[in-house]
């Protein structure tokens, strides 16, 4: 199996800005249930793209389709590989796993496997059914462990980790795939404040090293904090895409989520802030 040869670490600054993944008039969903229609987007090397939208707006479905797990209902989902931009369905499963890594929102490990062995599963695409991880794969695992600062936990059973630690293990396993693109479902959910910043900080540093990062996120403040660009999904469509300030507006949030918010600027940090404005809260003046 030929690998893409694109290592996320060390940096591939020359790649920055190249589209790693493209959707063109993409419709996705399941048999008999259309979830998203007419999506056009690129995810570029070196950027963090936050995908926002209410529950059921199709964030996970979009990621499943972009990674080739779910065949597109119409339109094209393409990935950049060693042979250029190809339709995901034209790329073999194991080759895809070397191009795009996914981190699922909820994953339940079945066995008390050690952290290192769990991360080693990321090398399956390059070793295959009967292979054992060789020098190249072991280095990928070492680098993934180093990047996620899991060295001290490498021998612990994954079933004994805290939520934040396990989330880092999942990111590490995706990194061991050596993908150019990472798609993460709600990587910040269920984590406390410090753990959230740990994971988001890791994503920022991965993007700085040239990986394309797309994550779905519920918390709009986190989206504004971490993302270079934001994509808003609502009512089966991609309704807005661009820098956080252009996409996250009070009008857009009202129309997509049906929630009243106040969008402002943090006075000290020049950072976009979204504040809930429910009916019972009367703003002064």
């Amino acid at each position, binding site marked *: 199996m030929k690998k893409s040869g694109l290592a996320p670490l060390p940096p591939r600054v020359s790649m920055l800005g190249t589209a790693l993944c493209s959707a063109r008039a993409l419709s996705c969903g399941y048999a008999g249930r259309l979830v998203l229609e007419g999506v056009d987007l690129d995810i570029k090397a070196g950027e963090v793209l936050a995908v926002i939208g209410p529950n059921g707006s199709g964030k996970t479905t979009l990621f499943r389709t972009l990674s080739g797990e779910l065949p597109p209902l119409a339109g094209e989902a393409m990935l950049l590989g060693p042979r250029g931009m190809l339709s995901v369905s034209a790329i073999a499963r194991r080759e895809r796993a070397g191009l795009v890594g996914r981190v699922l929102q909820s994953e*339940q490990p079945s066995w008390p*496997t050690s952290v290192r062995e769990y991360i080693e599963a990321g090398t399956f695409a390059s070793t295959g059914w009967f292979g054992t991880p060789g020098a190249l794969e072991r280095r990928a695992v070492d680098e993934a462990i180093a990047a996620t600062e899991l060295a001290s936990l490498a021998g612990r059973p994954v079933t004994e980790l805290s939520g934040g630690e396990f989330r880092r293990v999942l990111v590490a*396993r995706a990194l061991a795939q050596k993908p150019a693109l990472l798609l993460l479902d709600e990587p910040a959910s269920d984590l406390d404040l410090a753990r959230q910043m740990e994971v988001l900080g890791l994503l920022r540093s991965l993007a700085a090293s040239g990986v394309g990062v797309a994550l779905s996120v519920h918390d709009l403040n986190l989206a504004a904090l971490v993302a270079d660009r934001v994509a808003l999904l609502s009512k089966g469509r991609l309704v807005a895409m661009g820098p956080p300030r252009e996409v996250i507006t009070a009008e857009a949030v009202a129309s997509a989520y049906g929630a009243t918010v106040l969008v402002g600027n943090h006075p000290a940090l020049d950072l976009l802030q979204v504040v809930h404005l429910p009916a019972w809260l009367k703003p002064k003046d």
Partner: protein
Amino acid sequence: MKKPGTARGFLAACLILALALVASLCLGAASLSPLQVLRALGSRLGLVAQTEDPQALMAVTIVWDLRLARTLLAGVAGAALGAAGAVLQGLFRNPLADPYALGVSSGAALGAVAALSLGITAPLATVTALQGLSFVCALGSALLVYMIAKVGGKRAPTASLLLAGAAVGSFLGATVSLIMTLRQRDLQRVFFWLLGGFGGKSWGDLGAALPAAAISIAFAMLLARPLDILGSGEEAASSLGLDVGRTRALAVAASALGTAAAVSAGGVIGFVGLLGPHLARLLVGPGHRRLIPASAATGAALLMVADAAARSIASPIELPVGVVTALVGAPLFLWLLSRRGPEGEGA
């Protein structure tokens, strides 16, 4: 990455296997000392000088002509069950999966009973029909349980897994009874076979069981890495590049083959496929590359000891070996079940 404790765990599994073999050869209507057993083993292998001592000659006859073949057959069946149990647990991502509890053994038994009531007399054809039909029926029941218990691609919840297994098992058991009622001619033959056990089994039976069992274990070992990957869940495994559908199909086939090999050799024997992998996990950890061979070793050891117990506890009466494994295994199974949460998601 090999962990330092792993080699020791493997050594322990081999040691347990060797001890179980010698212990099983010692026990029986006439009990022998381990030294007598080792001497008797050595004498026909030409490792120990032949003796004229009548007691030693008797020991040689007991070991080689009465006990060794059945003990090895029990070992082979136990190994096949242990590996099949490890594969099923990996497939369902649930440590309570086992060929017996899931009704796969009942499927194999139905096939075997059907083969017996076909009334084939040629020995080779009998063996082939027995193994073949029991494999086909085991495969069918494993598939059925999988389709019922596996809701929405999530980790199989213990409750639905065991309920599906119980339902499929009782349906198949009823079918066996039906065949027995309708074909009274074969009743006795089928009944004794169904009781299970290795009494009176010969070297020929061992030769018939060995290929299927060996193939099933080798087949299971080829699935080691895919089963490791599957431990992350189906969607994650698929995104890691695993063809989940193919893995599932092959795992069902491998476990059905191992179960059929064991059931055709010794009838329906419960709990070996459950306890073998549990013991193996304690010794070598959860990685399937080590777990599957270790489960074969512990399964073999368990069933050899159970067979020895079956023929010596109530001697001269020989108990069905399935009774022994159930008397020991069922309480352990309940204990394991009670340690898991109501949703069956605990460790």
